[in-house]
């Protein structure tokens, strides 16, 4: 009898603990409760429950802690200071998959706020355990762990290097090949975060054979996956010519151009970013993109978007045109100048206008033919008004002034120059007058010497 009573006492206690932890986990989902919970000292109550004998209580306690740490960085700091991390890391190695998921969630929630917190996680040796968990069979565990690793690597190059040193990259490349879409997404995002900091890290990712798999996944219909994959490829390609060439060798062209017609805005933006990162290195890569019709696709994509989504496309046109005059002529015949001048007039944000002005300057600066193609679309008065207006930011004024100067130095199309004679400031007016003199001087000279019939006495 008394034995049963004793057992009943224990069961009651267990039930109470279970209920407490479940209710706390539920309450934390609503942000307005968190302050009350914090004042009630929930952190110190949850901590011993992490060591509870019952696995459900452990898991729910870990879940509640994760949600708390997710909410703001003070709570995440409290989690770190409360010495909870070593316990989590220790049990991460041993427990079942639900606990692993919850523990990885806590680590992710702590790491996302700041580099110092992520460093604290690395310091307590979580990386090795996380990488071991990446080999788990359950895709949910792998997803949670890959997410945590991605958030750690996001902050700076040292943390990325630490993640790479723990041997995460080959396992992440294996994760990308898994059939679950969510896991692929998270693994691609983690690879993107790792490779964005420095060329060596990008080289490590490439050496693990990630590019081929990422290139295959461009054809996947899921939009969020495409976003992450394109972002990863562009982070790899941006560092150096060799990396860009490796990305191109994975035969992404012309498949990437289909992503430019996707319905999702961010897929379009990331695809334009990828093409821009490839085009900016050398004229040969730009030539490759032009030969596959990439310029036309990007111009159409610019036409179909608005706002910040357009920015990488505009910069891509500028980079392509900057390399050589043949490429600039290719941009012109693909109807790029008309689209850029539409962007210049339509957009409201200054940095996008500055990018469009810069791109127009790069197109028009090569020869009088190019300058004429830019001047014919009546963009020069728009550029002048942007330069003169007091509302434009300094960057915009600087870029439009440079664009006007470089275009004017080659422009011989007089009808476009005439409006400048009326309302241009003196530093631009001198270029305009210089151009007029170049065009008209030889004409006047020929005319007068023919009229007078005298031999010239200049010699």
């Amino acid at each position, binding site marked *: 009898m008394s034995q049963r009573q004793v057992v009943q006492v224990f069961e009651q206690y267990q039930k109470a603990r279970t209920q407490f932890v479940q209710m706390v986990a539920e309450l934390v989902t609503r942000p307005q409760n968190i302050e009350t919970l914090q004042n009630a000292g929930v952190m110190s109550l949850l901590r011993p429950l992490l060591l509870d004998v019952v696995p459900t209580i452990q898991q729910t306690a870990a879940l509640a802690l994760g949600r708390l740490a997710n909410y703001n960085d003070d709570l995440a700091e409290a989690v770190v200071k409360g010495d909870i991390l070593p316990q989590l890391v220790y049990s991460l190695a041993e427990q079942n998959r639900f606990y692993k998921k919850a523990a990885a969630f806590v680590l992710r929630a702590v790491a996302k706020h700041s580099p110092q917190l992520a460093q604290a996680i690395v310091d307590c040796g979580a990386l090795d355990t996380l990488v071991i968990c990446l080999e788990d*069979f359950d895709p949910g565990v792998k997803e949670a762990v890959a997410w945590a690793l991605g958030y750690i690597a996001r902050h700076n190059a040292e943390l990325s290097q630490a993640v790479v040193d723990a041997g995460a990259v080959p396992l992440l490349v294996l994760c990308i090949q898994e059939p679950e879409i969510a896991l692929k997404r998270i693994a691609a995002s983690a690879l993107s975060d790792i490779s964005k900091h420095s060329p060596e890290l990008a080289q490590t990712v490439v050496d693990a054979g990630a590019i081929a798999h990422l290139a295959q996944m461009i054809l996947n219909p899921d939009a969020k996956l495409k976003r992450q994959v394109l972002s990863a490829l562009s982070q790899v390609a941006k560092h150096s010519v060799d990396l860009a060439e490796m990305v191109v060798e994975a035969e992404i062209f012309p498949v990437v*151009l289909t992503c430019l*017609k996707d319905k999702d805005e961010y897929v379009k933006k990331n695809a334009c970013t990828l093409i821009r990162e490839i085009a900016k290195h050398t004229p040969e890569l730009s030539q490759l993109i032009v030969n596959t019709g990439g310029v*036309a696709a990007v111009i159409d994509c610019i036409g179909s978007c608005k706002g910040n989504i357009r920015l990488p496309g505009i910069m891509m046109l500028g980079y392509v045109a900057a390399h050589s005059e043949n490429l600039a002529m290719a941009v012109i*015949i*693909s109807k790029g100048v008309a689209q850029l001048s539409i962007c210049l007039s339509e957009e409201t944000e200054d940095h996008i206008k500055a990018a469009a002005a810069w791109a127009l300057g790069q197109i028009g600066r090569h020869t009088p033919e190019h300058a004429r193609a830019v001047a014919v679309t009546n963009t020069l008065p728009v550029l002048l008004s942007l330069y003169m207006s007091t509302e434009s930011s300094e960057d915009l004024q600087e870029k439009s002034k440079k664009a006007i100067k470089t275009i004017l130095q080659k422009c011989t199309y007089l009808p476009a120059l005439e409006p400048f004679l009326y309302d241009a400031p003196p530093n631009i007016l001198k270029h305009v007058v210089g151009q007029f003199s170049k065009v008209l001087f030889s004409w006047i000279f020929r005319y007068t010497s023919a009229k007078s019939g005298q*031999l010239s006495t200049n010699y």
Partner: protein
Amino acid sequence: MATLARLQARSTFIGHQYYFRNSVVDVFRKKEHDAAVKIQSWFRGCQIRSYIRYLQRIVVVIQKWWRGYLARKHYQLIVKLAYYTMKMNIYNAMAVRIQRRWRGYRIRKYCFNYFYLKEYLRAVSETNDTIREALEEFADMKEREEKKAELEREEKKRDYQARKMHYLLSTKQIPGIYNSPFRKEPDPWELRLQKAKPLTHRRYQVKPTRSVQLSSWLACTSARSFPRSEFLPPIDRKPCQGPFRDIAEVLKQRYKPLEPTLRSEEPINELKAAREDLRRQEWTKNIHDNMFLPFSSYHKNKTYIPSMHSSSKYGPNSLGRQCFRDENPKKWICDKDFQTVLPAFDLFSKYGKLYSKAGQIL
């Protein structure tokens, strides 16, 4: 002597005459002198002028010849210079022609092929057009696929709804709501309902028990991790002879898992626990723990005002019908009753008498 006297007498006269004639002569002398001077000066002037003219003629001749000589020298210099300039211009023009041809040839042959560039740009624009068309097609295809998928989803949803609403189908006796007799033809939903198969009841879903996870080698080797199939007969069992039941049935009954009743599955104090739970949930919804006071106690200080119906006497009130004065005598102005001041209407005094006796008014 006489002459002397005559001379002396004439001396003053002579003196006067002398003086007079001298002075007159002076005037004439001056005049004559001036005239002579004028004639002489004029003549001398003519002389000199003709001399000067003569000199000028001579000097002009000299100067003419000298200037002609200088100009011819200068002219020869100019001609030499112009000839030289013309030669140099011709040489320059020829050199320009040669250089022009050579430069054009060199650029076209070795540095830059204009036609190739034109060809390249044309090829690029053709590729652009092809790519644009291909991308348009791709986008169209995607749209069509999306629309198709959307339509299919709608169709599935409607089918499911029709299956759920199958009881709204019309019968011979009662037309259903989609088959109103006033319509020319039944609603499309009616046809859909006719085609739909009614849904079966959802089977009670047994919660799957959590099996052991294969997270480590030890877990794999545990006995419970081996897959258990349902009804395995013992290995070397010969089929029994005789009218026995089907072995599968027997084994099914023998190895049937325990299905305890609901009463034994639930703990014994479930009801109490449920009540406690409910009370706790209700408690969380309270703002504070004080009980709300009933509304009637709000009016504790107020006196009760009974309604008019219960405070006045039952029955018709004579106030409006028989007596017309106020109930309260203190309000009366005078003791006597009111008199009718106005005379009665003649019309109404003859009420009932003027009218025809044929009616029933009398």
